[in-house]
């Protein structure tokens, strides 16, 4: 054990290849003879396909094949949905549209050609005869009846669900006061900078298919694609090379992934499809998409007594992998960071003629936090008290953990007031309020927003997950002493190649440069679940940690044997197993010289030399374990350990975000004055990576709060189909972040980590909206729906 790395700001081991342009994303992999695929996609939101004329395309230069829904129907299974809810309606979701198209961007035909230009040209030669059908885009209209989208069902309601604990009616009946507010969570596009992409290569002789895909879940994809296209799972290898961001949008199994594999098997050639940005906004999952009514019951002293949220969830035309599950995650987190004795959520989840919604960073939990935090602001406004004080009044105290909520969860650990106090101190909260007051007298519109969020992370116990919530790790010490970690988590920018190496380097007492973390290849790595739900470190990192402990037990046994010592007298420190009596000599600098890792002689493995030594390095033991000439009885050769970690609970990170803005009376422009965030994600492995996750999350919140919105018109046409129309925040849109932390370890895993990947997207939106609403309070504003744009603000100021 050393403490050289964990908790320190260690530069990323991933970066040298990335900053030099030497890393490989899917489209960077070139296989000889690769064919390229382009898709014909529906430009109608709902239409019957009368006919598809592919003749001209088939004879176009460079075109090898064209496939329509009829060609693949019955040969490729449906796109999977893992949502398991009572009475859930699951439409038959084929990889290519068969008789009807259900949303703009719905794939209708695939063209295979010798290069991407030829494939794209041929797409325009395919004539589809569509017959337009009535379109349903509004989720409440979908719920109320209107035209039914899927013939198989009698209405557009995919499911209804009521959840929560406590006597909600009694809570409202007995309340001193109540507040009610309709809240919109617009559809968002995740916009990973690398669009999706698939490269498929089938070897007919070996009967092996390899899929390179930009995904967050290589193993789950392997299982699902194997089932879809009917290849034995052990003949399918999924490789996720570098993945250029996911944010949940690649936590999925898409039609294109199965279809490309199938096409490669038909043609016996490598085939590649790289999504364009237009396709990405049309046909990669969207996030959010809820319209709901929040009601809060409370006492005159600010004590919360009940919360009800009745929501229409806009699922889109089909279920993708987790589509129906996302609104239920909102229901889980409706207690926020507060004691609320009665909570009820009523979900009406509907089909609409749009792309599916699914997990986008936060996945249902930002909606919950937004609802609760906006609600608390309304309660504060109703009572005329400071929004921070309403929050403080309703916090569970640290000694009340594990804290049971009326949503059925048990929060692991927390100290919400300390985080709030720290954030207020950093922000100079009282002074800010005074400046705001003074500013208002001078006509300035300054607003302060506070969010004291809690999130559910480290997803999660398998009982609560559709397909396993554990994570796996293998830790191996190679004969030369190098440490190899195979993790089932599949990070894509979060930096676990570094943070897992930090854990291993400290636990094994080796140099971090001697540790390599391998992930994202089902041909190399044992089955795993993937990276999403802020789980990779808390669940996957724990698997690494425990695997190391197992490995050290074996190493200790071998060391004891080799040193011919009593087991209790051999200790492990600084990467060495030593006799007690040897410790003093080692400290005096007279211990045996050890060949530094990486400087072992070339050629044949050296014979392990143990005679007369009083201590052994892990390298010595690894070599002995592999040479296997002098092992204790009944000891397997080799030095590796595998562990599958099953968490007993989720983790619940929390924190306080304070946003301070000033609104320009003339233009409605919203200017940043301050942004303070105090986050508690449990024990921190690498503070630099944590800061990066928080920054990125907050900026996605800024996007949601102020700029981003997927807009469909009444005909279901996507009006925000490019990055010109879909406004992702740019560098000039951000405040100068002031971050700090509190550190409340999680009791759920031995590392004490909680997770931080989604904190920013969950905690920040209510602070930002709260600040803008607060700035506009002199105009009687109590709530505004996101995204709040200067034009909305200007209209409020100028409506008199």
């Amino acid at each position, binding site marked *: 054990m050393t403490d050289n790395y964990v908790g320190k700001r260690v*530069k*990323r081991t*991933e*970066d*040298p290849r*990335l*900053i*030099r*342009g*030497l*890393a*490989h*994303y899917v*489209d*960077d992999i*070139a296989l000889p003879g690769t064919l390229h695929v382009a898709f014909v996609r529906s430009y109608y939101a709902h239409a019957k396909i009368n006919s598809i004329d592919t003749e001209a395309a088939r004879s176009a230069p460079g075109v090898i094949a064209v496939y329509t829904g009829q060609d693949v129907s019955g040969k490729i299974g449906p796109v999977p949905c893992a949502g398991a809810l009572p009475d859930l309606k699951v439409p038959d979701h084929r990889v290519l549209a068969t008789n009807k198209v259900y949303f703009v961007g719905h794939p209708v035909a695939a063209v295979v050609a010798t290069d*991407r*230009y030829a494939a794209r040209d041929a797409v325009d030669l395919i004539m589809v005869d569509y017959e337009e059908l009535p379109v349903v885009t509004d989720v409440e209209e979908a719920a109320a009846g209107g035209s039914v989208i899927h013939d198989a069902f009698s209405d557009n309601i995919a499911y209804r669900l009521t959840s929560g604990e406590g006597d909600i009616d009694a809570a409202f009946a007995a309340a001193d006061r109540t507040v009610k507010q309709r809240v919109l969570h617009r559809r968002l596009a995740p*916009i*990973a*900078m*690398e*669009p999706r992409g698939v490269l498929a290569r089938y070897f007919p002789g070996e009967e092996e298919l390899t899929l390179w895909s930009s995904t967050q879940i290589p193993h789950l994809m392997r299982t699902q694609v194997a089932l879809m296209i009917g290849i034995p799972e052990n003949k399918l290898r999924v490789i996720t090379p*570098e*993945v*250029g*961001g996911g*944010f949940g949008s690649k936590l999925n199994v898409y039609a294109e992934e199965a279809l490309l594999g199938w096409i490669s098997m038909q043609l016996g050639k490598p085939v590649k499809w*790289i999504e*364009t*940005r*237009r396709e990405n906004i049309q046909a990669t999952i969207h996030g959010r998409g809820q319209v709901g009514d929040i009601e809060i019951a409370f006492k005159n002293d600010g004590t919360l007594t009940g919360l009800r949220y009745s929501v229409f969830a806009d699922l889109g035309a089909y279920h993708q992998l987790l589509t129906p599950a996302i609104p239920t995650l909102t229901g889980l987190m409706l207690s926020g960071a507060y004691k609320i004795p009665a909570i009820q959520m009523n979900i009406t989840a509907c089909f609409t003629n749009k792309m599916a919604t699914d997990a986008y960073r936060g996945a249902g939990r930002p909606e919950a936090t937004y609802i609760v935090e906006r609600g608390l602001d309304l309660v504060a406004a109703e009572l005329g008290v400071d929004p921070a004080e309403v929050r403080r009044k309703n916090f569970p105290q640290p000694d009340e953990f594990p804290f049971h909520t009326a949503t059925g969860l048990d929060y692991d650990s927390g100290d919400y007031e300390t985080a709030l106090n720290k954030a207020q101190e950093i922000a100079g909260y009282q002074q800010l309020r005074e400046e705001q007051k003074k500013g208002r007298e001078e006509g300035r519109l300054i607003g302060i927003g506070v969010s004291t969020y809690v999130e559910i992370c480290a997803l999660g116990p398998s009982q609560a997950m559709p397909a396993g919530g554990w994570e796996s790790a293998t830790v191996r010490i190679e004969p030369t002493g190098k440490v190899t970690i195979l993790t089932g988590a599949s990070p*894509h*920018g*979060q*930096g676990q190649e570094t943070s897992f190496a930090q854990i291993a380097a400290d636990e094994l007492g080796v140099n971090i440069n001697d540790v390599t973390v391998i992930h994202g290849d089902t041909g190399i790595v044992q089955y795993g679940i993937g990276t999403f739900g802020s789980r990779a470190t808390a669940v996957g990192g724990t698997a690494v940690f425990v695997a190391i402990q197992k490995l050290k037990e074996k190493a200790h046994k071998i060391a004891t044997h080799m040193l011919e010592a009593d087991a209790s007298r051999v200790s492990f420190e600084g990467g060495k197993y030593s006799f007690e009596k040897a410790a003093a000599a080692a400290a005096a600098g007279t211990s045996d010289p050890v060949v530094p890792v990486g400087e072992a002689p070339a050629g044949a493995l050296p014979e392990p030399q143990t005679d007369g030594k009083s201590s052994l390095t892990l390298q010595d033991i690894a070599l002995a374990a592999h040479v296997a000439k002098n092992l204790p009885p009944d000891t397997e050769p080799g030095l590796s350990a595998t562990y599958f970690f099953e968490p007993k609970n989720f983790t619940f990170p929390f924190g306080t975000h304070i946003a301070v803005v000033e609104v320009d009376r003339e233009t409605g422009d919203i200017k940043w004055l301050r942004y303070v965030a105090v986050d508690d994600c449990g024990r921190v492995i690498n503070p*630099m*990576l944590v*800061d*990066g996750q*928080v*920054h*990125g*999350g*907050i*900026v*996605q919140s800024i996007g949601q709060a102020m700029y981003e919105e997927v807009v469909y018109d009444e005909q279901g046409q996507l009006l925000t189909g*490019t*990055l*010109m129309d879909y406004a*992702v*925040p*740019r*560098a*000039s849109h*951000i405040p*100068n*972040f002031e971050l700090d932390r509190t550190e409340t370890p999680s009791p759920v895993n031995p590392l004490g980590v909680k997770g931080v990947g989604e904190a*920013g997207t969950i905690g920040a939106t209510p602070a930002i909206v709260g600040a803008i609403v607060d700035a506009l309070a002199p105009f009687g504003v109590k709530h505004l729906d996101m995204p709040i744009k200067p034009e909305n603000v200007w209209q409020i100021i100028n409506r008199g």
Partner: protein
Amino acid sequence: MKKAINLSVNGVSHTDEVEPRMLLVHYLRDVLELTGTHVGCETSLCGACTVMLDGQAVKSCTVFAVQADGATVTTIEGFAKNGELHPVQEGFWEKHGLQCGYCTPGMIVTAAQLLDRNPDPSREEICHGLEGNLCRCTGYQHIIEAVQYAAKKAGQS
């Protein structure tokens, strides 16, 4: 109807016959196998494809390869010299200016041009200079710090 082009990329001269409609980014990636330059939007909005063309940072997804005939191009692969990272590359590593890394090559090229033009930029000038490049991971704060690091480092040398 292919057209012959001759250009210098990262100090190496190349002559090729290309379709007139071939985009510069596809020429760099598919023909020269310099895949460090990425495509993120095909519409000049995200900046992932930014390269230096005759000393100007341009978005190579909206430049035809034939337009680069006779030009000098530097891609991300040409930034480190003799194994020494460019100060901007070093800044990105030191300050954690990247996560998934997809926007990074374009960001580095843009940042290098920004510093060429303004060796001591303010925070606002850096933000303004990076407006043509999107990053979805970092929230930009560490990118801004990376550029500040590079400015300081270049100023010292």
